[in-house]
Protein backbone atom coordinates (compact mmCIF):
# COMPACT_ATOMS: atom_id res chain seq x y z
CA UNK A 1 0.00 0.00 0.00
CA UNK A 2 1.08 3.42 -0.73
CA UNK A 3 0.52 6.72 1.01
CA UNK A 4 -2.88 8.37 0.93
CA UNK A 5 -3.46 10.91 -1.80
CA UNK A 6 -6.20 13.39 -2.55
CA UNK A 7 -5.86 14.41 -6.17
CA UNK A 8 -8.55 17.05 -6.22
CA UNK A 9 -8.46 20.14 -4.07
CA UNK A 10 -10.18 22.94 -5.90
CA UNK A 11 -7.99 25.91 -6.55
CA UNK A 12 -9.34 29.25 -5.44
CA UNK A 13 -8.17 32.83 -5.39
CA UNK A 14 -8.40 32.97 -1.63
CA UNK A 15 -4.98 31.79 -0.54
CA UNK A 16 -6.02 31.48 3.09
CA UNK A 17 -8.79 29.09 2.14
CA UNK A 18 -6.44 27.01 0.07
CA UNK A 19 -3.96 26.87 2.89
CA UNK A 20 -6.73 25.77 5.23
CA UNK A 21 -7.67 22.94 2.93
CA UNK A 22 -4.12 21.73 2.58
CA UNK A 23 -3.61 21.90 6.32
CA UNK A 24 -6.77 19.90 6.79
CA UNK A 25 -5.60 17.31 4.26
CA UNK A 26 -2.36 16.94 6.18
CA UNK A 27 -4.29 16.70 9.41
CA UNK A 28 -6.48 13.94 8.00
CA UNK A 29 -3.46 11.88 6.99
CA UNK A 30 -3.06 12.60 3.29
CA UNK A 31 0.59 12.65 2.27
CA UNK A 32 0.06 14.12 -1.16
CA UNK A 33 -2.54 16.50 -2.52
CA UNK A 34 -3.08 18.03 -5.92
CA UNK A 35 -4.48 21.50 -6.42
CA UNK A 36 -7.01 21.32 -9.18
CA UNK A 37 -7.17 24.07 -11.78
CA UNK A 38 -10.43 23.71 -13.61
CA UNK A 39 -10.42 25.10 -17.09
CA UNK A 40 -13.59 25.64 -19.03
CA UNK A 41 -13.57 27.03 -22.57
CA UNK A 42 -15.65 30.08 -22.97
CA UNK A 43 -14.26 31.29 -26.24
CA UNK A 44 -12.28 29.32 -28.79
CA UNK A 45 -8.98 30.96 -28.19
CA UNK A 46 -8.25 30.76 -24.55
CA UNK A 47 -4.84 30.20 -23.15
CA UNK A 48 -4.33 27.84 -20.28
CA UNK A 49 -2.89 29.73 -17.39
CA UNK A 50 0.05 28.78 -15.30
CA UNK A 51 -0.52 26.70 -12.19
CA UNK A 52 -0.18 28.43 -8.87
CA UNK A 53 3.22 28.19 -7.39
CA UNK A 54 3.09 25.59 -4.66
CA UNK A 55 6.32 26.84 -3.15
CA UNK A 56 4.84 30.22 -2.35
CA UNK A 57 1.84 28.80 -0.54
CA UNK A 58 3.61 27.89 2.66
CA UNK A 59 6.84 28.99 4.22
CA UNK A 60 6.95 25.65 5.99
CA UNK A 61 4.74 22.89 4.67
CA UNK A 62 2.32 21.36 7.16
CA UNK A 63 3.36 17.99 8.58
CA UNK A 64 1.23 14.97 7.79
CA UNK A 65 -0.71 13.74 10.79
CA UNK A 66 1.08 10.91 12.54
CA UNK A 67 4.24 11.23 10.45
CA UNK A 68 7.29 13.41 10.45
CA UNK A 69 7.25 14.27 6.76
CA UNK A 70 5.73 17.37 5.20
CA UNK A 71 2.82 17.13 2.80
CA UNK A 72 3.57 17.05 -0.94
CA UNK A 73 1.63 19.41 -3.16
CA UNK A 74 1.08 18.76 -6.86
CA UNK A 75 -0.77 20.72 -9.48
CA UNK A 76 -3.47 19.40 -11.69
CA UNK A 77 -5.29 20.68 -14.73
CA UNK A 78 -8.84 19.64 -15.47
CA UNK A 79 -10.25 20.52 -18.86
CA UNK A 80 -13.98 20.50 -19.18
CA UNK A 81 -14.55 19.28 -22.70
CA UNK A 82 -17.89 19.80 -24.32
CA UNK A 83 -16.55 20.09 -27.86
CA UNK A 84 -13.87 18.05 -29.63
CA UNK A 85 -11.82 21.16 -30.27
CA UNK A 86 -11.30 21.60 -26.54
CA UNK A 87 -9.05 18.61 -26.43
CA UNK A 88 -6.62 20.09 -28.90
CA UNK A 89 -4.82 21.81 -26.07
CA UNK A 90 -3.80 18.41 -24.88
CA UNK A 91 -2.60 17.26 -28.27
CA UNK A 92 -0.70 20.32 -29.38
CA UNK A 93 2.65 21.42 -28.16
CA UNK A 94 1.22 23.98 -25.79
CA UNK A 95 3.82 24.28 -23.10
CA UNK A 96 1.35 25.35 -20.44
CA UNK A 97 -0.10 21.89 -19.94
CA UNK A 98 3.35 20.56 -19.24
CA UNK A 99 3.57 22.74 -16.18
CA UNK A 100 0.98 20.60 -14.47
CA UNK A 101 1.78 17.33 -12.75
CA UNK A 102 -1.50 15.75 -13.65
CA UNK A 103 -3.87 16.41 -16.50
CA UNK A 104 -7.50 15.39 -16.32
CA UNK A 105 -10.37 15.71 -18.71
CA UNK A 106 -14.06 15.99 -17.95
CA UNK A 107 -15.87 14.74 -21.06
CA UNK A 108 -19.41 16.00 -21.39
CA UNK A 109 -20.52 13.82 -24.27
CA UNK A 110 -20.23 10.16 -25.06
CA UNK A 111 -18.07 10.87 -28.11
CA UNK A 112 -15.59 12.83 -26.06
CA UNK A 113 -15.65 10.18 -23.37
CA UNK A 114 -14.75 7.64 -26.01
CA UNK A 115 -11.98 9.87 -27.31
CA UNK A 116 -10.64 10.51 -23.83
CA UNK A 117 -10.53 6.80 -23.12
CA UNK A 118 -8.90 5.79 -26.35
CA UNK A 119 -6.75 8.56 -27.70
CA UNK A 120 -6.34 11.75 -25.69
CA UNK A 121 -3.19 11.90 -23.64
CA UNK A 122 -4.49 12.41 -20.09
CA UNK A 123 -4.04 10.81 -16.68
CA UNK A 124 -7.53 11.05 -15.30
CA UNK A 125 -11.04 11.03 -16.65
CA UNK A 126 -13.61 12.67 -14.42
CA UNK A 127 -16.94 10.96 -14.02
CA UNK A 128 -19.94 13.20 -13.81
CA UNK A 129 -21.53 12.89 -10.39
CA UNK A 130 -23.72 15.95 -10.28
CA UNK A 131 -26.38 14.88 -12.74
CA UNK A 132 -27.88 11.76 -14.18
CA UNK A 133 -25.25 10.15 -16.39
CA UNK A 134 -25.86 11.61 -19.86
CA UNK A 135 -24.65 8.41 -21.52
CA UNK A 136 -24.16 4.76 -20.69
CA UNK A 137 -20.72 3.48 -19.93
CA UNK A 138 -19.65 1.00 -22.54
CA UNK A 139 -17.12 -1.68 -22.17
CA UNK A 140 -14.73 -1.07 -25.14
CA UNK A 141 -13.63 2.50 -24.33
CA UNK A 142 -13.35 1.74 -20.64
CA UNK A 143 -11.24 -1.33 -21.30
CA UNK A 144 -9.05 0.73 -23.58
CA UNK A 145 -8.60 3.33 -20.86
CA UNK A 146 -7.67 0.65 -18.34
CA UNK A 147 -5.18 -0.74 -20.85
CA UNK A 148 -3.63 2.68 -21.24
CA UNK A 149 -3.35 3.17 -17.51
CA UNK A 150 -5.84 6.00 -17.30
CA UNK A 151 -7.86 6.33 -14.13
CA UNK A 152 -11.48 7.26 -13.58
CA UNK A 153 -12.09 9.80 -10.91
CA UNK A 154 -15.09 9.91 -8.62
CA UNK A 155 -15.57 13.01 -6.48
CA UNK A 156 -17.34 12.75 -3.15
CA UNK A 157 -17.92 16.36 -2.11
CA UNK A 158 -21.24 16.74 -3.98
CA UNK A 159 -22.50 13.70 -2.08
CA UNK A 160 -21.90 15.53 1.19
CA UNK A 161 -23.70 18.64 0.14
CA UNK A 162 -27.03 17.44 -1.04
CA UNK A 163 -29.29 14.41 -1.07
CA UNK A 164 -30.08 14.53 -4.79
CA UNK A 165 -26.44 14.86 -5.76
CA UNK A 166 -25.69 12.02 -3.41
CA UNK A 167 -28.09 9.78 -5.32
CA UNK A 168 -26.48 10.73 -8.62
CA UNK A 169 -23.02 10.11 -7.24
CA UNK A 170 -23.83 6.64 -5.97
CA UNK A 171 -25.90 5.66 -8.95
CA UNK A 172 -23.34 6.83 -11.51
CA UNK A 173 -20.57 5.19 -9.55
CA UNK A 174 -22.48 1.93 -9.45
CA UNK A 175 -23.12 1.95 -13.17
CA UNK A 176 -19.46 2.67 -13.85
CA UNK A 177 -18.45 -0.13 -11.51
CA UNK A 178 -20.70 -2.54 -13.36
CA UNK A 179 -18.55 -2.04 -16.42
CA UNK A 180 -15.06 -1.46 -15.09
CA UNK A 181 -15.35 -4.00 -12.25
CA UNK A 182 -13.62 -1.75 -9.78
CA UNK A 183 -10.45 -1.40 -11.85
CA UNK A 184 -8.65 1.92 -12.23
CA UNK A 185 -10.84 3.96 -9.93
CA UNK A 186 -9.67 6.79 -7.78
CA UNK A 187 -11.81 8.65 -5.28
CA UNK A 188 -10.96 12.22 -4.43
CA UNK A 189 -12.58 15.06 -2.60
CA UNK A 190 -13.07 17.95 -4.99
CA UNK A 191 -13.35 20.04 -1.86
CA UNK A 192 -13.90 23.75 -1.89
CA UNK A 193 -13.81 24.10 1.86
CA UNK A 194 -11.79 22.39 4.55
CA UNK A 195 -14.86 20.94 6.22
CA UNK A 196 -15.80 19.09 3.07
CA UNK A 197 -12.79 16.85 3.25
CA UNK A 198 -12.91 13.41 4.79
CA UNK A 199 -10.28 11.07 6.14
CA UNK A 200 -8.78 8.35 3.90
CA UNK A 201 -10.20 5.46 5.89
CA UNK A 202 -13.64 7.04 5.71
CA UNK A 203 -13.33 7.27 1.96
CA UNK A 204 -12.20 3.67 1.75
CA UNK A 205 -15.44 2.74 3.50
CA UNK A 206 -17.44 5.02 1.26
CA UNK A 207 -15.94 3.10 -1.65
CA UNK A 208 -17.90 0.05 -0.53
CA UNK A 209 -21.06 2.01 -1.25
CA UNK A 210 -19.78 2.70 -4.73
CA UNK A 211 -19.54 -1.02 -5.33
CA UNK A 212 -15.83 -1.54 -4.63
CA UNK A 213 -14.46 -4.30 -2.48
CA UNK A 214 -12.57 -3.50 0.72
CA UNK A 215 -9.06 -3.80 -0.66
CA UNK A 216 -9.86 -2.02 -3.91
CA UNK A 217 -11.59 0.79 -2.05
CA UNK A 218 -8.44 1.45 -0.04
CA UNK A 219 -6.39 1.31 -3.22
CA UNK A 220 -8.67 3.97 -4.71
CA UNK A 221 -7.25 6.54 -2.29
CA UNK A 222 -3.71 5.23 -2.21
CA UNK A 223 -2.13 2.86 -4.73
CA UNK A 224 -4.23 3.94 -7.70
CA UNK A 225 -3.52 7.60 -7.04
CA UNK A 226 0.17 6.81 -6.95
CA UNK A 227 -0.10 5.11 -10.32
CA UNK A 228 -1.95 8.12 -11.69
CA UNK A 229 0.79 10.45 -10.48
CA UNK A 230 3.42 8.20 -12.04
CA UNK A 231 1.42 8.16 -15.25
CA UNK A 232 1.51 11.94 -15.13
CA UNK A 233 5.28 11.88 -14.80
CA UNK A 234 5.79 9.54 -17.73
CA UNK A 235 3.45 11.65 -19.83
CA UNK A 236 5.62 14.64 -19.08
CA UNK A 237 8.82 12.90 -20.07
CA UNK A 238 7.27 11.24 -23.09
CA UNK A 239 6.09 14.62 -24.20
CA UNK A 240 9.60 15.92 -23.78
CA UNK A 241 10.89 13.42 -26.30
CA UNK A 242 8.43 14.59 -28.89
CA UNK A 243 9.28 18.15 -28.10
CA UNK A 244 12.99 17.81 -28.82
CA UNK A 245 12.48 16.14 -32.20
CA UNK A 246 11.19 19.24 -33.87
CA UNK A 247 10.85 17.78 -37.30
CA UNK A 248 8.16 15.30 -36.37
CA UNK A 249 6.25 18.02 -34.63
CA UNK A 250 6.14 20.07 -37.77
CA UNK A 251 4.99 17.12 -39.78
CA UNK A 252 2.17 16.55 -37.39
CA UNK A 253 1.02 20.11 -37.66
CA UNK A 254 1.09 19.90 -41.39
CA UNK A 255 -0.78 16.68 -41.35
CA UNK A 256 -3.61 18.12 -39.35
CA UNK A 257 -5.42 20.02 -42.06
CA UNK A 258 -5.44 16.92 -44.21
CA UNK A 259 -7.27 15.10 -41.50
CA UNK A 260 -9.81 17.88 -41.25
CA UNK A 261 -10.36 17.77 -44.95
CA UNK A 262 -10.86 14.06 -44.80
CA UNK A 263 -13.45 14.48 -42.12
CA UNK A 264 -15.33 17.10 -44.00
CA UNK A 265 -15.58 15.16 -47.20
Amino acid at each position, binding site marked *: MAVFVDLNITNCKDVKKLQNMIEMAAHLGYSTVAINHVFEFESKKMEIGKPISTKELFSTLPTVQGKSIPIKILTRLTIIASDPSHCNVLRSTSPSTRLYDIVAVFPKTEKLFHAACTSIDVDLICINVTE*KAPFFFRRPPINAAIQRGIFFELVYTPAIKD*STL*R*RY*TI*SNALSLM*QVCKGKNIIISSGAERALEMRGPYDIATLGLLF*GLTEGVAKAAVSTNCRSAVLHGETRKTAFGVVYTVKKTCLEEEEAEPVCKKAKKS
Partner: protein
Amino acid sequence: MRFKSRYLLCELVLEDPRWRQNISQGTVVYNVREAIARTHGDFGAAACAVSLSVKYLNVYTGVLLLRCRKDFYQLLWSSLPFITSLDNRGQRIPCFINTLHVGGTIRTCQKFLIQYNKNQLLQLMKNCTNAAEKEAIRQSLQSCSLKSLEEPEFVLSKNEENE
Protein backbone atom coordinates in the same frame (compact mmCIF):
# COMPACT_ATOMS: atom_id res chain seq x y z
CA MET B 1 -22.92 -6.72 -22.85
CA ARG B 2 -25.65 -8.27 -20.79
CA PHE B 3 -26.27 -7.10 -17.26
CA LYS B 4 -27.87 -9.64 -15.02
CA SER B 5 -31.31 -8.80 -13.78
CA ARG B 6 -33.87 -10.21 -11.47
CA TYR B 7 -37.57 -10.22 -12.20
CA LEU B 8 -40.09 -9.99 -9.43
CA LEU B 9 -43.53 -11.28 -10.22
CA CYS B 10 -45.98 -9.59 -7.91
CA GLU B 11 -49.66 -9.34 -7.31
CA LEU B 12 -51.05 -5.88 -6.84
CA VAL B 13 -54.06 -6.11 -4.58
CA LEU B 14 -56.31 -3.08 -4.42
CA GLU B 15 -58.72 -2.51 -1.64
CA ASP B 16 -61.30 -1.15 -4.03
CA PRO B 17 -61.11 -2.61 -7.57
CA ARG B 18 -62.76 0.49 -9.00
CA TRP B 19 -59.44 2.31 -8.85
CA ARG B 20 -57.98 -0.04 -11.46
CA GLN B 21 -58.33 2.35 -14.35
CA ASN B 22 -56.29 5.01 -12.63
CA ILE B 23 -53.18 2.93 -12.26
CA SER B 24 -50.48 3.19 -14.86
CA GLN B 25 -46.96 1.80 -15.07
CA GLY B 26 -45.65 5.23 -14.21
CA THR B 27 -47.63 5.36 -11.00
CA VAL B 28 -46.30 2.00 -9.93
CA VAL B 29 -42.68 2.86 -10.73
CA TYR B 30 -42.97 6.15 -8.91
CA ASN B 31 -44.43 4.54 -5.81
CA VAL B 32 -41.97 1.68 -5.78
CA ARG B 33 -39.07 4.13 -6.05
CA GLU B 34 -40.50 6.17 -3.20
CA ALA B 35 -40.81 3.07 -1.08
CA ILE B 36 -37.20 2.10 -1.75
CA ALA B 37 -36.02 5.59 -0.91
CA ARG B 38 -37.98 5.44 2.31
CA THR B 39 -36.76 2.05 3.47
CA HIS B 40 -33.22 2.16 2.09
CA GLY B 41 -32.54 5.84 1.86
CA ASP B 42 -30.43 7.62 -0.70
CA PHE B 43 -28.29 4.56 -1.22
CA GLY B 44 -31.26 2.36 -2.03
CA ALA B 45 -32.71 4.98 -4.32
CA ALA B 46 -29.40 5.34 -6.13
CA ALA B 47 -28.85 1.62 -6.46
CA CYS B 48 -32.26 1.11 -8.03
CA ALA B 49 -32.26 4.32 -10.02
CA VAL B 50 -30.93 2.96 -13.28
CA SER B 51 -32.38 -0.43 -13.77
CA LEU B 52 -35.71 -0.49 -11.99
CA SER B 53 -38.61 -0.76 -14.39
CA VAL B 54 -42.08 -2.22 -14.70
CA LYS B 55 -41.95 -4.82 -17.43
CA TYR B 56 -45.58 -5.74 -17.39
CA LEU B 57 -48.66 -4.52 -15.61
CA ASN B 58 -52.16 -5.86 -15.85
CA VAL B 59 -54.44 -3.81 -13.68
CA TYR B 60 -57.35 -6.25 -14.03
CA THR B 61 -55.57 -9.28 -12.71
CA GLY B 62 -53.20 -7.19 -10.64
CA VAL B 63 -50.20 -8.96 -12.15
CA LEU B 64 -47.06 -6.87 -11.98
CA LEU B 65 -43.61 -7.76 -13.26
CA LEU B 66 -40.74 -5.66 -11.95
CA ARG B 67 -37.18 -5.75 -13.20
CA CYS B 68 -34.16 -4.81 -11.14
CA ARG B 69 -30.38 -5.26 -11.18
CA LYS B 70 -29.44 -8.61 -9.76
CA ASP B 71 -27.13 -7.09 -7.15
CA PHE B 72 -29.84 -5.00 -5.61
CA TYR B 73 -33.07 -6.95 -6.00
CA GLN B 74 -33.10 -7.53 -2.25
CA LEU B 75 -33.43 -3.80 -1.69
CA LEU B 76 -36.44 -3.77 -3.97
CA TRP B 77 -37.95 -6.90 -2.52
CA SER B 78 -37.64 -5.73 1.06
CA SER B 79 -39.27 -2.40 0.22
CA LEU B 80 -42.36 -3.85 -1.45
CA PRO B 81 -44.10 -4.92 1.77
CA PHE B 82 -43.98 -1.32 2.95
CA ILE B 83 -46.17 -0.09 0.13
CA THR B 84 -49.61 0.38 1.64
CA SER B 85 -51.01 2.77 -0.89
CA LEU B 86 -50.30 4.04 -4.35
CA ASP B 87 -50.06 7.75 -4.76
CA ASN B 88 -51.58 8.80 -8.06
CA ARG B 89 -51.64 12.56 -8.63
CA GLY B 90 -52.84 13.34 -5.16
CA GLN B 91 -55.14 10.34 -4.96
CA ARG B 92 -54.29 7.73 -2.41
CA ILE B 93 -55.18 4.25 -3.49
CA PRO B 94 -54.91 1.74 -0.63
CA CYS B 95 -53.30 -1.47 -1.77
CA PHE B 96 -50.62 -3.99 -1.06
CA ILE B 97 -48.12 -5.84 -3.18
CA ASN B 98 -47.70 -9.54 -2.78
CA THR B 99 -44.55 -11.05 -4.28
CA LEU B 100 -45.31 -14.33 -5.98
CA HIS B 101 -42.04 -15.28 -7.55
CA VAL B 102 -38.49 -14.10 -8.11
CA GLY B 103 -36.79 -15.25 -11.25
CA GLY B 104 -33.73 -14.63 -13.34
CA THR B 105 -35.57 -14.38 -16.64
CA ILE B 106 -38.98 -13.29 -17.78
CA ARG B 107 -39.60 -16.80 -18.99
CA THR B 108 -39.35 -18.44 -15.60
CA CYS B 109 -41.72 -15.86 -14.23
CA GLN B 110 -44.11 -16.58 -17.04
CA LYS B 111 -44.01 -20.31 -16.37
CA PHE B 112 -44.64 -19.68 -12.76
CA LEU B 113 -47.54 -17.39 -13.50
CA ILE B 114 -49.26 -19.99 -15.67
CA GLN B 115 -48.87 -22.61 -13.00
CA TYR B 116 -50.13 -20.18 -10.42
CA ASN B 117 -53.17 -19.22 -12.44
CA LYS B 118 -53.97 -22.88 -13.06
CA ASN B 119 -54.03 -23.50 -9.36
CA GLN B 120 -56.20 -20.48 -8.84
CA LEU B 121 -58.65 -21.76 -11.42
CA LEU B 122 -58.80 -25.14 -9.76
CA GLN B 123 -59.59 -23.40 -6.53
CA LEU B 124 -62.36 -21.51 -8.23
CA MET B 125 -63.77 -24.68 -9.66
CA LYS B 126 -64.20 -26.16 -6.22
CA ASN B 127 -66.31 -23.23 -5.19
CA CYS B 128 -68.53 -23.30 -8.28
CA THR B 129 -72.25 -23.52 -7.72
CA ASN B 130 -73.69 -24.17 -11.17
CA ALA B 131 -72.68 -26.13 -14.22
CA ALA B 132 -72.22 -23.16 -16.54
CA GLU B 133 -69.52 -21.68 -14.36
CA LYS B 134 -67.79 -25.01 -14.12
CA GLU B 135 -67.77 -25.40 -17.87
CA ALA B 136 -66.27 -21.93 -18.34
CA ILE B 137 -63.45 -22.69 -15.94
CA ARG B 138 -62.78 -26.05 -17.52
CA GLN B 139 -62.40 -24.38 -20.85
CA SER B 140 -59.96 -21.84 -19.56
CA LEU B 141 -58.00 -24.58 -17.84
CA GLN B 142 -57.63 -26.38 -21.13
CA SER B 143 -56.37 -23.25 -22.74
CA CYS B 144 -53.50 -23.09 -20.25
CA SER B 145 -51.66 -25.81 -22.08
CA LEU B 146 -47.95 -25.67 -22.88
CA LYS B 147 -48.76 -24.34 -26.30
CA SER B 148 -49.99 -21.11 -24.89
CA LEU B 149 -46.67 -20.59 -23.10
CA GLU B 150 -45.55 -18.27 -25.83
CA GLU B 151 -48.57 -16.06 -25.34
CA PRO B 152 -48.84 -14.97 -21.77
CA GLU B 153 -51.26 -12.24 -22.73
CA PHE B 154 -53.69 -14.83 -23.89
CA VAL B 155 -53.56 -16.77 -20.66
CA LEU B 156 -53.94 -13.67 -18.65
CA SER B 157 -56.90 -12.45 -20.61
CA LYS B 158 -58.56 -15.82 -20.14
CA ASN B 159 -58.09 -15.34 -16.49
CA GLU B 160 -59.76 -11.98 -16.65
CA GLU B 161 -62.89 -13.39 -18.11
CA ASN B 162 -63.31 -15.59 -15.15
CA GLU B 163 -63.16 -12.91 -12.60
